[in-house]
């Protein structure tokens, strides 16, 4: 029955896709004009981030050292302090290493005037980072938990994101990174487990990045340190000690604004970021082993601006999309992805786009397992997508 349908529609589809393709080029040239004023990364007629550096060939970079996420971030911060003499790191309690030890030994090696504690004021911390960055120097501010960033939200939204735009590109605070641990950790409760990335992806003018492991963290943090747009860097706290990987010793830069296809597949496109990819990997494996469903797993890496081209190309191939994130489903980044994809390749979709996300409640204390989108909920959604498209 499916074959009959596709045969009948094949000619009309090819006409539609041609029209859509022209439409898309028109659309992208429209958005390019706007983007030029928000972002410094130079644009050209082909695509928003065409000029981004190429994907590094991580496998070929030797020698490598096995380490966890904390060590990777720690060593990358040290490298940034070494190469950029204007770089400073500040935040609450970071001089002895911080609550997760990401900044351990940095004060000993680089001095108290470059790595120092601040009192307890998030608004002041980020505000000062914006000011310091606007002089062309690199400010790396740490917010102790992403749950506490909200006093600083005004500084990020109303100061950092609009600095370049409102000064007609005279001033910018691009050399700023705000790092914060996010996400569920098993016993965090209301104020140590939140994933607020959706509040930030709604802000034009900043870059939001989330690494999924030690290898990505180093490349993304180094890219953030050379970028001329302010970066909000979420670190998955549940993976700080548990995720180990072989990290190349030399410097490498992961391009901002480009997603990575972790595993190729042909049945379902699965999109996630950060800690959730660990869950999605398990779900994809279960789907393959138990049901023979081949999933294409995509790590968005940058959430704003996000790589819609890669996801669209994948959905055109598979026809089915699943987005999964820890934060509540209503108003989350999954909604943005779903809407943009259906705008671009509606006719490629064989099933409604699925979102497997946290519940629409404050992050709970005791019933964390029921709240989180675990591998079983994702597996059910993948199976449903395949059933629908048959």
């Amino acid at each position, binding site marked *: 029955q499916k074959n009959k349908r596709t045969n009948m529609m094949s000619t009309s589809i090819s006409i539609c896709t041609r029209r859509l393709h022209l439409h898309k080029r028109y659309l992208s040239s429209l958005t390019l004009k706007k983007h030029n004023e928000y972002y410094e990364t130079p644009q050209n007629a082909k695509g928003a981030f065409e000029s981004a550096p190429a994907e590094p060939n991580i496998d070929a970079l030797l020698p490598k050292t096995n380490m966890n996420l904390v060590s990777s971030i720690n060593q990358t911060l040290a490298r940034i302090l070494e190469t950029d003499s204007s770089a400073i790191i500040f935040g609450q*309690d970071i001089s002895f290493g911080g609550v997760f030890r990401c900044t351990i030994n940095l004060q000993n090696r680089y001095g108290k005037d470059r790595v120092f504690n601040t009192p307890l*004021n998030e608004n002041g911390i980020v505000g000062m980072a914006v000011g310091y960055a606007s002089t062309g120097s690199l400010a790396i501010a740490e917010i102790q938990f992403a*749950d506490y960033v909200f006093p600083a939200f005004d500084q990020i939204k109303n100061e950092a994101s609009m600095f370049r735009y409102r000064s007609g590109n005279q001033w910018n605070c691009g050399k700023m990174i705000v790092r914060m641990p996010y996400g569920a950790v098993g016993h965090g409760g209301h104020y140590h487990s939140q994933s607020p990335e959706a509040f930030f992806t709604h802000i034009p003018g900043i870059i939001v990045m989330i690494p999924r492991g030690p290898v990505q963290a180093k490349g993304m943090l180094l890219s953030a340190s050379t970028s001329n747009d302010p970066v909000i860097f979420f670190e998955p706290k549940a993976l700080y000690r548990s995720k180990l990987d072989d990290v190349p010793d030399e410097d490498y830069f992961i391009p901002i604004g480009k997603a990575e296809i972790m595993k190729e597949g042909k049945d379902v496109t699965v999109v996630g970021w950060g800690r959730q990819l660990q869950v999605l990997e398990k779900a994809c494996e279960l789907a393959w082993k138990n049901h023979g469903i081949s999933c294409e797993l995509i790590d968005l890496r940058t959430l704003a601006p996000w790589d819609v081209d890669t996801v669209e190309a994948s959905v055109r191939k598979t026809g089915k999309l699943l987005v999964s994130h820890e934060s509540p489903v209503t108003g989350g980044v999954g909604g943005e992805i779903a809407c943009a994809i259906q705008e671009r390749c509606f006719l490629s979709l064989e099933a409604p786009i699925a979102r497997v996300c946290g519940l629409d*409640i404050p992050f709970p204390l005791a*019933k964390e397992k029921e709240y989180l989108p675990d591998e079983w909920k994702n597996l059910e959604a993948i199976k449903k997508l395949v059933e629908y498209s048959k």
Partner: protein
Amino acid sequence: MKKITKQTYLDWYKDMLFWRKFEDKLASVYIQQKVRGFLHLYNGQEAILAGALHAMDLSKDKMITAYRNHVQPIGMGEDPKKVMAELYGKATGTSKGMGGSMHIFSKEFGFYGGHGIVGGQIPLGAGIAFGDKYKGSDGVTLTCFGDGAARQGSLHEAFNMAMLWKLPVIFIVENNGYAMGTSVERTANHQDIWKLGLGYEMPCGPVDAMNPIKVAEAVDEAIQRARRGDGPTFLEMKTYRYRGHSMSDAQHYRTKDEVEEYRKIDPITQVLDIIKEKNYATEDEIDAINKEVKRMVKECEKFAEESPYPETQQLYDMVYEQEDYPFIS
């Protein structure tokens, strides 16, 4: 203020000892992983609560504090069994297991919580006081926070509005010397946090908070001022906490000798010394109090252990008042 009599001392001894043992029991149960999440203990700061309660009129006065909040509701009258059940995450807890250690609330006894965001509760306290003034009641609100929270912008905004509108609020900073791991010397260029009130021309001053008598006198003066309608007061309680910031605190930022020094002025020891010196109770009576406290703590633990966990459906029940919005399925 009610006179400080022999009974006051005995009550203080029993209450402070119960709070101390309650917190110690929680620490041991946390290590057994029966209490999960975070645990911030009040050991060493009991005199603040004991003195403040003596000066308050619990029928109309309210309190709001940060996350070191297990014993305040107990002092104000809440059933300690329910507080311990809340820490265990059981359905019989004060917040039905939804909040845990950092979010104990008690509507019946006027305790407004239990807040995790540092400094977030300071404007809340001013707002509660505004409600009292607007409705014409002469209740006052005690707004407590730590020395770390004193650096937040919300403190200045709340102070300004409270002075502008002469709100019946008492701001109390529990200065225990450390904002988690950062000592007071390293968060500002001066160590007298009470001076933050001078910029707002707010009556302010330091208080020796290891001595419940001094605390009661200072808080009483502030309460009288607020009840008269003369506006807020800012008190700095100079105290110390014997345990770490929370159970996951390795305490690298202070030496064991410093903690030992402060143990010499333990408020419970001070009250016990006065009781013994003035012969308010015999050795047997003191023993009886100790035994009673032990029994009460055991009873709380038993109640908490035997209570059931909340149902999964409860996750959806208390997000909004209306329970059947379609998107909370």
